[in-house]
């Protein structure tokens, strides 16, 4: 119950912040522009593709790349959206107000995470609305699109959890955003190394986000990938709850 209360308040606070609206609007505008470019490119290629058996379609060439772009933007977006969630509360002294209202550390962390997740979820739905708006006119691969959407949703949830954990560790939102960005980029770095990393260090390869995102974007849902994302989310949120719980003890 207290989680939902905190989530409602946090969502309201997100909804009245100009910076949040600017970030959201800029992200959606950028993705809409890229969607149009991708679509026009696809329309040019479509006659030639139609002649090839098993050629990639609208989902492979427009919808999934759009989601992949959203994933890359989210590396920056998630830290910026979540940076004030706990660090800002600590800096403004409102954290003590939440504690004095009898709200537990888990209620605060989960409530804030839920609010951010809802905001990001709405953004994902708006991004998905772009390819879905053409569903009547194209042959969408629903299974592939669903798997890719699940992958992006899990990635967004993971990035937000990492950002909330960084926000729990400091009283400076800028520091929290920087920390979250560095952490996210480190976990993303595998995509830069490509297949070499898998050979050089299988453990590092396993730890990187793209290793588990790519199969989902290709339409392959593997339980191991889902578990990886859920584990990372669980670890990050546990750290945040633990850190906030210590606030009352060590504060």
């Amino acid at each position, binding site marked *: 119950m*207290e989680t939902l*209360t*905190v989530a*409602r*308040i946090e969502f*309201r*606070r997100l909804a*009245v*912040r100009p910076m949040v609206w600017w970030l959201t609007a800029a992200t959606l505008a950028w993705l809409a522009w890229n969607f149009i470019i991708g679509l026009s490119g696809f329309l040019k290629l479509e006659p030639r593709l139609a002649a090839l058996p098993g050629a990639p379609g609208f989902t492979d060439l427009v919808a999934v790349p759009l989601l992949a772009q959203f994933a890359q933007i989210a590396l920056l977006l998630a830290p910026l959206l979540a940076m004030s969630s706990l660090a800002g509360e600590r800096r*403004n*002294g*409102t954290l*003590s*107000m*939440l*504690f*004095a*209202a*009898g*709200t*537990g550390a888990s209620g605060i962390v989960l409530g804030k995470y839920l609010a951010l997740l809802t905001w990001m979820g709405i953004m994902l739905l708006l991004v998905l609305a772009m390819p879905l708006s053409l569903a009547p006119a194209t042959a969408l691969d629903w299974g592939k699109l669903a798997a890719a959407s699940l992958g992006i949703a899990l990635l967004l949830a993971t990035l937000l959890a990492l950002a909330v954990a960084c926000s729990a560790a400091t009283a400076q939102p800028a520091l929290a955003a920087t920390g979250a960005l560095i952490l996210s980029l480190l976990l993303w770095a595998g995509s830069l190394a490509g297949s070499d990393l898998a050979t050089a260090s299988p453990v590092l390869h396993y730890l990187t986000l793209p290793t588990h995102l790519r199969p989902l974007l290709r339409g392959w849902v593997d339980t191991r990938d889902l578990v990886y994302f859920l584990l990372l989310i669980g670890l990050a949120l546990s750290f945040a709850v633990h850190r906030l719980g210590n606030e*009352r*003890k060590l*504060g």
Partner: protein
Amino acid sequence: MHSSVPHALLQLNKVYRRRGGHDVVQGVSLSLQAGEVLGLLGVNGAGKSTTLMMMAGALAADRGQITVQGRNLAEVPGQPRQTLGYLPEHAPLWNELSVTEQLHASGQLRGLNLRRRTQRSRQLLDTLHLNDVETRLCGQLSLGQRQRVGLACALLHEPPLLILDEPSNGLDPLQAEMLRNLLRERAAAGVGIVLSTHLLSEVTAVCTRVAILHEGRLQHDAAVAATPQALRIGFAIPVDVTYLKTLQGVREAEAEDPLQVRIVLEDPTQVAALTRALVAAGLPPVRIEPASPPLARLFLDIASRRAVA
């Protein structure tokens, strides 16, 4: 742990807290009954705010026990939701919310339903003269307005216990008087109030009891009315202070100069009896006036003590 005062609204039992490598609160024990107003005094760094934060559940005690309505705060972490209202030193508000939204958010956290939140918000906006700013963002409020909004948040759910850390910060004299009236009215309704302040006049005007903290230790805890009355008496001829000390009702006598003595009475109503006794002894006073308030003297005495190594 055994509670020395049964059914106390708030009870602190040998509470310790260390912060930033210092023992900020050391073995503080005190209790508060319903309807009592406890003034917590102390110089900056005496441990007042930390003590209040622990009372409010915003900070855990390292050792000792804090109970509210007989229940241990450490064992029932969600207990403060209904039972206490807390206003920290600088009213913590969400700057991006309007005053009304802030009050509603505070009410939600305290478990009030929409109807009750709306009703109580309206009442408090009226009482605390915040109607003009109800749609303004909290980040745009003046210090006094923020303080009143913070106070409204603390009062919203009508808690039986109020913990206020320097609530008159930034208030003008009229608003400060309004605050005092409000606190008296809440106390009369049975609410227990802990009030930390630097203003001794506020303590004498509102509080029924005063506690003085110094270097994390409780140095004084007594009813405000029990604080002795101090007088400055001028004489036409030099007087013997030793003789004055023997007079009935005189607790202390101290010569400030040969013709002026500072006297502390056991009971403030004994001024007339003392005057009669002085006249009868052939020492008619030429002037009687209140000396520096005894609470101020007591506070200064305690505050000037150095820590025992």
